[in-house]
């Protein structure tokens, strides 16, 4: 496990919707041990980028590489099974299931023979172990047996991350994990992200600037579908182009 | 098949397709804008046809006055139904919409049975349009069928104008693509819904009324057209006005020429066509709002 190894990269990604260019030759790299944040105004193309990296969208042009393999034409599930986890802006948990079952189901994607209909899924060793692992990493052990629906918003966001982790990913694409969180919850999530980046590569799309500048190792700034800067937080803070284009409006 | 017969068949296909368009249009609009899958839409067609029969005495037998009467009633009916029933369906899941509108079909059919009975009725073609034009050496083409095609075509053009050139049309098109956006633009969504629904009902009722003189009026006539309209809407792309137009014409062609060339398979043909199109384009030929 080499820290600094490039896990996921997008090269010259272009996305056009009819005449509209949503992304214009965007390149990003996510390294192991790195928390890479992407910021930008609404409509800058952050969500499009994350959708292309995760495989939900096929780019008009460009290439996506995951663990040294060209995955541009891979489907989302195939990328997910090969080390790519993602969370969504909105909660995508299963509200009627327990926290454990949420994670176990996510982990089940790795099971080799899913069609064996006579086996009780609850007795599956592999998915249970991975689920517990995800829960532990996300710090939700105390809630393992609770139904997910009634959890607080912050806990649900944590569960979202836990479900990603249960699939044993190398790279995490997190879409606004802090959205709608209170101060205390934010702190807990930031601590969690700090711990996770050791073994993973994390791409974070986030609006909370304070948080981003506190924990990101690298920040990419997007405006109107283009990357205008990609550097350490300190350099970004002083970058004049960023100031006029983005921080200035803030 | 010699050429003149071929042309006549083309005319038949066109006329059938245009009538389908009129009914399917309301279905696709109501779904596209309001997100409601309305199985009872065929019933509106049936109601229209029965209006053409039942209202005729009130209008002194004048077909055109009956039409106006019927349209006014249709708009009122659509408005009331939206208010009393369909407005409760917006937040419901598709399955519940399917079942509730399925229940509505049964209710409409029975109310029809209670009010006008189960007889088959004919509706006379208005004298003004009762002539026919000779085509070929034995065949004549009834003027009324041309009139139906003409009305449908005019309405299609009119709707096209409304959708592309007016503010209401823009709202409707925007609404079928993105409902939240319309709301955020400060448009009175409830009003929009009622207008769309009443228009959809009026279109189906109108189709039923103008079809009545050539189709006669009978129980269960709504169900027959409903399923075929579903096919039209699916092929055209749900919520697409242009799609409904082209799909309806396509179905008209396939049905007409299927009966002549492949009589054994003519019932199945439209469904095979649908399967093929979905294989090629899973969400129909055109996008919503187009």
């Amino acid at each position, binding site marked *: 496990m080499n820290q600094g190894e490039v896990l996921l990269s997008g090269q010259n990604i272009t996305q056009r919707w009819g005449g509209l260019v949503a992304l214009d030759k965007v390149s990003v790299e996510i390294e192991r041990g790195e928390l890479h944040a992407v910021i930008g105004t609404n409509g800058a193309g952050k969500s499009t980028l994350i959708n292309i990296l995760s495989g939900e969208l096929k780019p008009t042009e460009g290439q996506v590489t995951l663990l040294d393999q060209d995955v541009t034409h891979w489907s989302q599930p195939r990328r997910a099974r090969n080390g790519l986890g993602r969370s969504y802006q909105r909660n995508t948990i299963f509200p009627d299931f327990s926290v454990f079952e949420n994670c176990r189901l996510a982990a089940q994607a790795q099971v080799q023979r899913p069609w064996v209909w006579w086996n009780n899924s609850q007795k599956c060793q592999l998915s249970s172990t991975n689920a517990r692992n995800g829960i532990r990493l996300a710090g939700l052990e105390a809630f393992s047996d609770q139904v997910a629906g009634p959890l607080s918003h912050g806990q649900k966001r944590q569960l979202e991350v836990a479900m990603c982790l249960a699939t044993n990913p190398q790279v995490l694409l997190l879409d606004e994990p802090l959205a709608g969180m209170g101060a205390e919850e934010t702190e807990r999530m930031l601590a969690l992200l700090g711990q996770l980046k050791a073994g993973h590569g994390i791409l974070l799309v986030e609006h909370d600037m304070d948080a981003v500048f506190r924990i990101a190792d690298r920040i990419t700034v997007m405006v109107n579908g283009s990357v205008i800067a990609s550097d350490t937080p300190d350099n970004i803070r002083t970058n004049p182009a960023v100031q006029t284009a983005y921080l200035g409006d803030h | 098949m010699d050429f003149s017969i071929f042309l006549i068949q083309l005319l038949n296909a066109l006329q059938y397709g245009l009538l389908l368009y009129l009914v399917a249009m309301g279905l696709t609009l109501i779904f596209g804008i309001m997100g409601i899958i309305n199985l009872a839409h065929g019933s509106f067609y049936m109601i229209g046809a029965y209006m053409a029969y039942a209202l005729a005495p009130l209008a002194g037998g004048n077909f055109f006055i009956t039409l106006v009467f019927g349209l006014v009633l249709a708009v009122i009916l659509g408005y009331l139904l939206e208010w009393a029933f369909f407005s409760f369906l917006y937040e419901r899941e598709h399955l519940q919409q399917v079942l509730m509108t399925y229940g509505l079909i049964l209710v409409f059919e029975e109310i029809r049975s209670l009010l006008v009975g189960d007889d*088959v009725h*004919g509706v006379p073609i208005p004298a003004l349009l009762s002539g026919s034009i000779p085509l070929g050496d034995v065949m004549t083409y009834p003027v009324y069928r041309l009139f139906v095609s003409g009305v449908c075509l005019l309405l299609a053009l009119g709707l096209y104008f409304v959708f592309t050139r007016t503010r209401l049309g823009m709202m409707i098109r925007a609404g079928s693509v993105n409902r939240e956006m319309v709301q955020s633009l400060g448009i009175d969504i409830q009003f929009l819904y009622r207008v769309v629904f009443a228009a959809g009902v009026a279109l189906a009722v109108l189709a039923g009324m103008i079809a009545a003189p050539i189709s*006669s009026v009978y129980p269960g006539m709504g169900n027959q057209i409903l399923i075929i309209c579903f096919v039209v809407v699916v092929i055209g792309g749900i919520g697409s006005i242009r799609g409904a137009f082209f799909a309806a014409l396509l179905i008209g062609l396939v049905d007409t020429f299927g009966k002549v060339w492949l009589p054994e398979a003519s019932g199945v043909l439209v469904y095979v066509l649908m399967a093929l199109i979905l294989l090629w384009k899973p969400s129909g030929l055109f996008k919503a709002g187009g």
Partner: protein
Amino acid sequence: MKRLQTTLLAAALLGTSAASMAEDAALKVGLMLPATGTYAQLGTAIENGFKLYVDQAGGKLGGRGVEYVKLDDESDPAKATDNINKLIKSDKVDVVVGTVHSGVAAAMAKVAKQTGTLLVVPNAGSAMITGPMCAPNIFRSSFSNRQPGFAMGKVAAEKGYKKVATITWKYGAGEESVGGFKEAFEADGGEVVKELYVPFPNVEFQALLTEIAALKPDAVYSFFAGAGAVKFVKDYKAAGLMDSIPLLGAGFLTDGTLKAQGGDGEGLLTTLHYADELDNETDKAFRKAYSEAFDTVPDVYAVQGFDAAQILDIGLQAAGGDVSKTADIAAAVEATEIDSPRGKFTLSRAHNPIQDIYLREAKGEENVVIGVAVEKLDDPAKGCRL
């Protein structure tokens, strides 16, 4: 041994008393007819006709008072078996009368054959019912689909038509009717140049009318009923074919539909086992009584309902009101000439009417008889092993 004898005697006594009890009790008649859907109107006419006969017979059939159990068959064959089972097993009817839809009637015939329950079919003309499904306890008071078609085939040949096209719905009744027409017409030297079919119950005929115009046959034979008949005749007229290519049809084309056709059916020649202005006293009395009782003019369906009751009455009279004496009932019905408003007819071994098929002409709202197309027409009853 003695004990056994006593037991047997007791059982015999009990048996007879039970039987005589049954004769005294009201005859339960299950009317399994369509009350909803396309055929609802026909169901009503049949029921009216049946009740008219019973009322005229003093409220009795075969000497027993009559009690009705009504059931809507919805013209849905998928529910038919359950429906008739309900009448037989749950409502414990003695006799079942029904129905219009051939598919439903076919399912009913199967159950009747298995259970031995008396069944009178007052409309459905499917060949199956008096063919492979025929049984001593199953009767038909109407017709087989083949009959009117066959008669029209004769008429068409007599009129000197050489090339005829046929058009009907793609379904059992239509195909059997066209089959009958073809059989008679081609036997007499004609040729059916094209058989056109419309998916049932589709009523969009325009394409096939154009096809007919292109074929230019000497005449067209058609089988349609109800709404389809109304629309077909109107379309045929509107296409301008009525004047150039004569339209012939099985009688359903113009029965109960002339008013809705709004004059477009005027002058059409059709064949059927009933007609207006038949010159017989039974019919005159029937029409008068029917009009008075139900405030409407009777049609062929009412006649079929009326005769269904009549057939039951004849059979049950002979059996002393005991529905279980199937052989006696069948023998009596087969031996009797039934005095129907349609004219006198008999039932074949397969229990299908052997009847005169009339040639009729549509005048105003009536199908006026202009002659007998075929006298005492039988049905081959293919597959019947009686």
